[in-house]
């Protein structure tokens, strides 16, 4: 993968530089091992029979027990791809919703001066400060009144109206870091706000939009509580809820299948990150920025 070199320009290579680079990579690889250990452990566990997982120490596999994958895939009332598709539907809705609604709101907060801006901004921040557990019940009553329980709407609709204040605030900070001269130049050219937003700022905000898309993907994909509450029929389950079906703390759990399907469900997340991070490197750094 090619990377645009931001940061300072690499000095000419000398033996000392090589040594320094070697040390840096050694440190990074050591830290990487710490980071990757849980994944390795999960992969190894997914290849062990359930009875062995918690008794065999270490990461050494004597044999590959791949049955967990086949078994886990078909153990629930639908084959596992069904739940992957459910999650994909919810996630794509959430990403589209967040990208549109949060960027619009962020533009207003960051660039426009209107009456009540400070107050609305404070209210927006306040909405992320209240713990979810006390608003989940009123929210459930609300969605139940709209007859939306057991559909994906309670998981997706709020994203289209910028209820994820986290991303609004994130984009506000990014926009405020973009030199104002750029939109002022456009204003003088006679561009309206929509054009400044769509043609000047959006291209410059690609790292922020990529961050939003990646986080929305990963957080929605791994969210358990909201789908648990709203999606009651097994056919509507998203991946995390389906994964819990393998477990029962009061009797026996199918840990092998749970680990196997967890690995399966990590793949889309990982691909999303790999794909999304390419866009993290675009923006002013590559478009020149004058």
């Amino acid at each position, binding site marked *: *993968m090619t*990377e*645009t070199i*931001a940061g*300072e*320009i690499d000095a000419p290579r000398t033996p000392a530089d090589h040594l320094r680079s070697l040390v*840096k*990579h050694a440190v*990074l690889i050591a*830290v990487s091992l*710490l*980071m990757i250990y*849980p994944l390795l*452990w999960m992969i190894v566990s997914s290849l062990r029979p359930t009875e062995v997982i918690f008794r065999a*120490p270490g990461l050494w596999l004597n044999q590959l027990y791949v049955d967990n994958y086949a078994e886990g895939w078909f153990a629930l009332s639908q084959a596992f791809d069904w739940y992957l598709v459910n999650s994909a539907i919810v996630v794509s809705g959430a990403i589209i919703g967040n990208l549109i*609604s949060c960027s*619009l*709101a962020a533009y*207003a*907060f960051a660039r*426009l*001066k*209107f009456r009540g*801006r400070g107050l609305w901004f404070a209210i*927006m921040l*306040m*909405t992320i*400060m*209240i*713990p*979810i*557990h*006390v*608003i989940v*019940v*009123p*929210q459930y009553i609300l969605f139940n009144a709209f007859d939306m329980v057991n559909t994906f709407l309670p998981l997706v609709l709020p994203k289209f*109206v*910028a*209820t994820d204040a*986290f991303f609004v*605030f*994130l984009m506000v900070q*990014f926009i405020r*870091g973009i030199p104002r001269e750029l939109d002022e130049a456009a*204003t003088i050219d006679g561009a309206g*706000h929509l054009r400044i937003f769509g043609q000047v700022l959006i291209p410059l905000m690609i*790292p922020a939009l*990529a*961050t939003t898309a990646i986080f929305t993907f990963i957080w929605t994909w*791994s969210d358990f509580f909201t789908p648990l509450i709203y999606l009651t029929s097994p056919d509507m389950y998203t991946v995390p809820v389906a*994964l819990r079906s393998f477990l029962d703390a009061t009797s026996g759990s199918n840990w092998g299948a749970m680990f196997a399907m*967890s690995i399966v469900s*990590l793949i889309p997340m*990982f691909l999303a990150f*790999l794909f999304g991070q390419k866009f993290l490197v*675009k*923006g*002013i*750094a590559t478009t020149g920025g004058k």
Partner: protein
Amino acid sequence: MSALSELSHLKHRGPVTPEQRAARRKEASHDNKAGYLFLLPWLVGLFVFTLGPILASLYLSLTDYSLIQAPNFLGLDNYERMLTDDRLHQSLKVTLIYVGVGVPLQLALALGVAVLLNKGMRGLAFYRSVFYLPSMLGSSVAIALLWRQIFGTTGLVNQVLQLLGLDATTGYVSDPDYALWTLILLNVWTFGSPMVIFLAGLRQIPTMYYEAAALDGASRISQFARITMPLLSPIIFFNLVLQIINAFQAFTQAFVVSNGTGGPSDSTLFYTLYLYEQGFTRFDMGYASAMAWLLLAIIATFTAVNFLLAKFWVFYDD
């Protein structure tokens, strides 16, 4: 003009020509309509989905709501009860330690790694993905199992210590002296999210500043202090504010690791864990709602202080 002086010009807000000032004023008069138009989706969301439940929780905090029966109005009883609730005070203490230690550690690590990874080097995409990995696993059930596997009585840490000839038999996740610290470590370990945000922010800093600075002969440290820090400050500020808010609301990891009890001996009784216990295990949603509003007040205070202090170190280009 050298890039650095251009930057300092930005920072100290050079003189604005009368034409520019007029343009800005003209813009301001137009903004009311446009502002509310752009804000419309958010306002709809606020009034339809968010504000109602929040105000409902405020009302419920004045009642004895059990989730199952209709609420009865109590007045300020729930708030009065918080004054003498020892476990509430314990949960505040635990949470404050978690915020005070966990957030700075996590942010420093995230910033450091982001700056390191921002430079052109081989294997960049690989390292970035690997460092983000723990954040993807962060809230899964597997984490609780894993943490026990590592920090349990017969866990990985003790096995390594025993190999070194030490008599290590402490169960770190289950000892009141250590349990909270393993959770702080878990939080630091998931530094991927702020790291990604820092990376995105670093990419917005125009390369020409660094190129010009390098030509001026500025050292790396000076480049970091004079270019990276000020231009990244809005993003640092964002991460600081949001990580503090998140840390105050830390729930999932503590819940899965202690199986929802906040044990041992309430040493990992996070505020929201106790709130959840009151609301959903003890069916005292009235008290839980009151706790939520106390938390809101605390977080709002921290956030307000952050915004006040931001004037001294956060640099915006507008």
